[in-house]
């Protein structure tokens, strides 16, 4: 079943790989590379899932999440992070259901199905 996914990731190689894989699974992926355009895109369009990197230019991932939650309480948000710091994980958990590493996101996509 095709989902509309908003992907916010500024590292171009990761961005390309994630987008490629999510599209191979039959999703429609809208990719942006910074926080400001992520908030703008979410305002303009409807999404079934948001995948957010924490360290992005403009507004950081946590603030983007806050912005989205002010408008929409329902849409699932996944934090994508290579960071392992406990405080990042806790800060993320307060706002989003889970933090996930990129390869988990793609290969354990049963979890993706559960969320959306």
């Amino acid at each position: 079943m095709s989902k509309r996914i908003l992907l916010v990731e500024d590292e171009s190689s990761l961005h390309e790989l994630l987008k490629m894989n999510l599209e191979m699974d039959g999703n429609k992926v809208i990719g942006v590379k910074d926080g400001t355009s992520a908030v703008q895109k979410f305002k303009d369009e409807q999404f079934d899932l948001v995948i957010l990197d924490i360290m992005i230019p403009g507004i950081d991932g946590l603030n983007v999440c806050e912005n989205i939650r002010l408008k929409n309480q329902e849409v699932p948000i996944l934090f994508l992070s290579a960071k392992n710091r406990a405080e990042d994980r806790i800060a993320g958990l307060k706002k989003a259901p889970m933090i996930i590493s990129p390869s988990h996101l793609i290969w354990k996509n049963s979890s993706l199905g559960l969320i959306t």
Partner: protein
Amino acid sequence: MKLRLFLVFVILYITAVFGWWLYSFISYTEKEFQLENTNLTLNATVIQFKITEFIDFNKLDKYEAPFETYVRKKPEIDRLHRDLNAYYHVKSELSIRDSSETLYNLVDIKISGEEFKTIHRNFMKKQRAFYSEVIFFTILVISGVVWVFGKLESLLKLNKMQNNFLLSVTHEFKTPLTAIKLSSQTLERRKTDEETRIRLIHQLVSNADRLNELLDNVLLATRIDAQNYRYEMKSTDISKMISETASQVLTEPNFHGQFIFDEGPVHITGDEMSLKLVFSNLFQNAVKYAGAGSEIKVKYIKDGRHLQIVVSDNGKGLSASEYKAIFNKFYRVGDEDTRETKGTGLGLFLVKQILKSHKADIKAAGNEPSGMSFIITFKRTDL
């Protein structure tokens, strides 16, 4: 912040202790002075009474012939007067008689002469000594405390920067690693067409390169920092080297800006490997901070004894307050979580160290109308 508060508290405490010390010493000497003063006053009074006694003719009248008594006692009275005048200054003398016709010789005295001057001088000397002692020690202790806290604070700052460095370096390593993992897993698990396969392989190679470059940078930084790196100095055409370094940046898929070079061979004596790192760092920074579409200019300015190489971009630039700090080890522009770019904070530190070994200098400055310039000054070796 807590440290600062503690510092202020310690300084206040020290000032209070020394203040109390000063106060107690001063008040002690003051008491001593007053005691000596009182003793002298008492002596004066005693002498005064003796004189009064001698010249109280009314009393003497009853027992002896006044004139004879006076004559007999005159030398003694004179001696007492001399004593009195030596030690005390008699301000006024007033003789009165009361209703019973008793004579009172009222003398208003003030301590004077050498005695008083000496004890007063001693008192002032002691007071001055205490003041200077206390001020000296207070300054010594406070500057000591400030020095120790300054050191402590800079150590804490370096420690924090080092932690930041570890964080950002871990992140820097993780990103290409994750990309490599994802690309290889995609190749392994999915049926891909030829075009996608080539894209994925390109991702693998470029991310491996990125990891490699990062490791090289960290290793070189460690070696240069530990003064373990051996520079191989030889005459080099630096303009050729710079355009070679620039061509690497130009081949990056993300970069769609342009380079503008001055023409002609420019020779300096230097170590090629490390100098390449200098310019690749400067160019990467320009791309990173000025954006993928930036225009990077390289100018060579020769004057009498110096060769200047100016690398400038047309990005947003930095505030003047950061021009110096960016060359510090682990320094990163902005805050760790919200900063717009990624990096280790080692690049410009390395650049500065390498150039230092070439006896060259680097300065950051603003560029007109916008952006940054880096001005590198070498001593000319082609003369």
